[in-house]
Structure formats: structure tokens, C-alpha cells
């Protein structure tokens, strides 16, 4: 039954996608919209074929993906333990609260001037934009997640002899993991925002560069292709995530 309903969902999704693309194509073909404003999917597809043949599409995609993943993984690797630590210590929470409040709302875009001054146009600068742009929101997010844990479970753990560190590792981490993972999915989107911004400035490859370059030359199809590529990449990463999620969260379903 479970399996059935899942494959049913999948079928519905596919159908809905097909309908969506068909409507889009028709609307463009029938001339309701100028291709400059919105090219039909077929035009995007032919642009994709062209760019796959000359190897550009793959190299832009890989460049951006690499940057996103490096920055994102680094930021998660710092944010998760640090967030759990802050979420379980009133004192350090108070110490870092003002700094986090200051840093958190800062959009990745606003880091570009400083990062350029500090790091120049290196790959490190790109990673740092992703890192700075996604670190503070991840941290906030993880701290919120730790607060959703039933305090009874923390009591129980301490009652069984758990130290503060044990509580973090054995209770707060796994207890907030489902929410953390949900949050990381959102963060991955933020990381992409960051990289697109970073690639605006001083980049010669990457999907951000491709979109901006396409815009420069009024190639709306290239712009849309770049957008679709971002979506596809995120979807692929999502599937990997989900596999990972099942592994990490065997107790849910």
C-alpha cells in the first residue's frame, strides 16, 4: 500500500510536469508571449544541446556545484556542532547571541565587497561567500531545532548519567536531526543564492556567470537554461540527501 501510493504520487508528479511544459510550449508557440520574454521549452532544450556539445554546460554546472558544496559542507560542519553546543548552553548562547544576531541577517551579497577585499578573486573567496551567507542562518536554524526537543528526554538522559557532552551527542543531536536536515535543505537553496551572487563578480565559469552572461546578450533561453540547471542540480543533491536522511533517521517511518 505504501509502495503503491508512492508510485501513484510519482505518476501524478510526472503528469503534472508534462502538462506544465506542454502548456508553456503552446503558449509560446501560439505567440502569446515573445520569446525574448519567455522562450518555449523546446528553444531552451536546443540551447542545452548546443551547450552540452561544446562542453560549456557541464563545466559551468560542475564549477558552481563544486563551490556550493565546498562552502555548504564547511558551513554545516561548523554550524551543526556549534549550534548544538549553543543550544544546550545558556551561558555561551548569551555570549554569542549579539554576534549571531548581527551576522545572521546579512545577505551573502553584502559580503562580496569585504570578501573581495580580504581574499581577492580566488576560489577561496567564492567558498567564503557561500560560507558566510549560509553559516549564520544555519546556526540560527539549528539552535531553534535544539529547542524543540522534549525537555523530559534531556532529564532522562542526565538521570542515566549523561554528561553535558553526552546529552548533546545522544539526545540533542539525534532529537533535532530531522529538523536540522529539513533546515539544511533550505540552506542549500541559500548556498546557491550565494554562489550566483559570487559568480557575478570576477568569475569566468559557473551557472551564475552563465545566467548573467546570457542576460548580457539577451539570450533569455540561456538565462532559463541556467535556472533549470540550478534546479536540476539541487534536485539531484536532494535525492542524495534523502538517501542519507533515511540512513540517518531510521526511527522515522
Amino acid at each position: 500500500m505504501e509502495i503503491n501510493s508512492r508510485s501513484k504520487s510519482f505518476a501524478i508528479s510526472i503528469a503534472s510536469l508534462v502538462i506544465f511544459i506542454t502548456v508553456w510550449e503552446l503558449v509560446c508557440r501560439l505567440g502569446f508571449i515573445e520569446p525574448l520574454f519567455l522562450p518555449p521549452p523546446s528553444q531552451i532544450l536546443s540551447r542545452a544541446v548546443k551547450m552540452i556539445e561544446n562542453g560549456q554546460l557541464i563545466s559551468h554546472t560542475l564549477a558552481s556545484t563544486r563551490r556550493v558544496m565546498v562552502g555548504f559542507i564547511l558551513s554545516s560542519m561548523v554550524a551543526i556542532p556549534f549550534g548544538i553546543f549553543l543550544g544546550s548552553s545558556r551561558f555561551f548562547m548569551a555570549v554569542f547571541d549579539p554576534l549571531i544576531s548581527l551576522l545572521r541577517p546579512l545577505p551573502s551579497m553584502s559580503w562580496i565587497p569585504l570578501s573581495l577585499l580580504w581574499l581577492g578573486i580566488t576560489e577561496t573567496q567564492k567558498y567564503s561567500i557561500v560560507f558566510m551567507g549560509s553559516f549564520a542562518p544555519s546556526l540560527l536554524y539549528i539552535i531553534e531545532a535544539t529547542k524543540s526537543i522534549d525537555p523530559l528526554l534531556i532529564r532522562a538522559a542526565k538521570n542515566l548519567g549523561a554528561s553535558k557532552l553526552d546529552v548533546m551527542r545522544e539526545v540533542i543531536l539525534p532529537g533535532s536531526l530531522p529538523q536540522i536536515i529539513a533546515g539544511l535543505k533550505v540552506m542549500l537553496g541559500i548556498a546557491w543564492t550565494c554562489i550566483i551572487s559570487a559568480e557575478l563578480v570576477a568569475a569566468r565559469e559557473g551557472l551564475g556567470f552563465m545566467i548573467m552572461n546570457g542576460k548580457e546578450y539577451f539570450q533569455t533561453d540561456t538565462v532559463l537554461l541556467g535556472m533549470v540547471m540550478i534546479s536540476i542540480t539541487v534536485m539531484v543533491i536532494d535525492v542524495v540527501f534523502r538517501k542519507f536522511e533515511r540512513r540517518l533517521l531510521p526511527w522515522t517511518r
Partner: protein
Amino acid sequence: DETPEKVTVIYGGSSWLGHYPAWVGIEKGLFQKHGLGVLFQNFYASSGRMGSLVAGDLDIASTGSISGIALMAAGSKGFMAFGTPDSYATVEGIIARENIKTIQDLKGKRIAAPFASSAHVLVLDILEQNGLDPEKDLTLLNLKVNEMPAAMHSGEIDACAAWTPHFNKLLKMPGHHLLVDDTEFSLYKKYKLGPGPDLLVVRKEFAQKYPKTSKAFVKGYFEAVDMLINEPEECAKVLMKLTNLSMEDQMEVLKDITWITGEEQRALMVDPGDFVAGMQQLAQFLVKHNQIDHAPAVKEWIAEDMVP
């Protein structure tokens, strides 16, 4: 012994015409002749390029002088200027719809310019000359040059200040005409200086550490300038790779540029230093229009040793 201490130079450029000599120098092997390998790093904006220069990622670059002056005003001693490669006055200007005949007609209209650029400065100056207040009499919008054709097309804006190659593109669009170009700029009338002349800059530490490398670069660079003057078609062929323009358009752009040779540099930069004086005026102009806090003494940033 003139062999350079360091054989690679990282140059920061873009597809703007101010970077043609560097590109030609690389493509035609002119730097190579002096034992140099030059790496051309692409940047969209002058400010990003200048930031990278002072951060130590670039060795030499060409920049719009507004960015240069702004960086001086910010107090950075990390770079020096050593030349100006070109003068252009007819590939930048304000383009308007046909119904706008005079500057006065701009009243109440929407005008776009990329803020903090030469075109921005041009607009501010032209408005001032005609007694218009950019805050009250009209709407001045910050728009990138590449966004202007669409905005003009859709009627979002009535006029815009742009430079080549978008300048040419905008002019060709039906119903558009040139309102003014850089020749109307107040400093141009006095100093033959456009609102944003190109400036060659070098990282100070680099110039001090590798004087011979710097010299070699300057030599190769101005050889490329000579080539641009003497063999424009040969150069246009390699430039198409940089600009993505057609051969025809590329030649068109080249026609409008006055290249400044190595021999002329000393007079402009050092003695009597007309160009530097003009830059100083520009700095004051920027202060007057609240773009920068105070005018730096431009002279202090000239690397006299490197000027050919």
C-alpha cells in the same frame, strides 16, 4: 641586464576598450618578446578589479579613473598609476528618445546611468551645466549598461547614459538619438579629458619588488598600443574573441578611439602632467557631487619610474 625578476604578470581586465592593448599584447606575443607571460583576468566592474589589485591578486590593471580616485580617497596606498592608454569621447554619451530634443527636455523624465561610473559623472555634469537638479527635476536611475536596451525598448526610461558597445547598440535602435557625448563634458572642454578616462595601475608592492618586470610590461604594452594604431585590422581579428563583436562592429569601435602612445605618456602623467591635473579636477567634481568624501592628491599616486 633587463631580464625580468618574475615572468608572469596577472592583469585584470574586461571586454572594455581600455583593455585592448593588454589583450593584443598577449595574443600577438608582444609581452612574450620581453620574456613575460601575462595572465588576463576578467572582471565586469572596475571596483572589483581594483579591490583585487589591492588585495594582492592582480599585479597590473587598467581601470576607470573614477574607481581609481575613489580608492585613493579611501586612503589606499597599495597601488600606483603609470599611464593612460586611450582617449575616447564619442563612444560614450547620453542617448534619448526622439521627443527629447534638448537637455531641458529631460525635465520630469526617467534617465538611467550606471552609478559610480563615467557615464554617471557625465550625466551629473551635463545636468549641472544646464541648471537641472538630479534629485528634483528628474528621476535618475541606477541601471547597468547592459540592461539599458531592454529598458529603453519597453519604455521604462526615456534616456540613458552608456558606453560602447551598448552605446552603439542603443544608437542603432529606431527612435533613438544621441543627445550629448563626452565632448560636452566640462573637463573635456578644458583638458580634453572625458568623465572616466582609463588609468593604468600597478600594485605598489609589485612595482617595488619587480621593477624590471614592470618595465618589461610597460614596453610590451605600448608596443601593443602602436600595433593598434598601425594595424587595426590585425588587432580586430584577435579582439573579437574578447568582445564577442562582429568584425564590422569591432572596426567601428576601434575607429572611435584615440590611442595614446608611450612617447606621449610622460607629458601627460609627469611633466607638465595635464592628465593628472585633470584627474585632480575630476576628484573635486566628485566631492562636489557628494560621491566621495574628500579629494585625494592624485599626484602622490603616480609611479613616475614606470611612466615610459
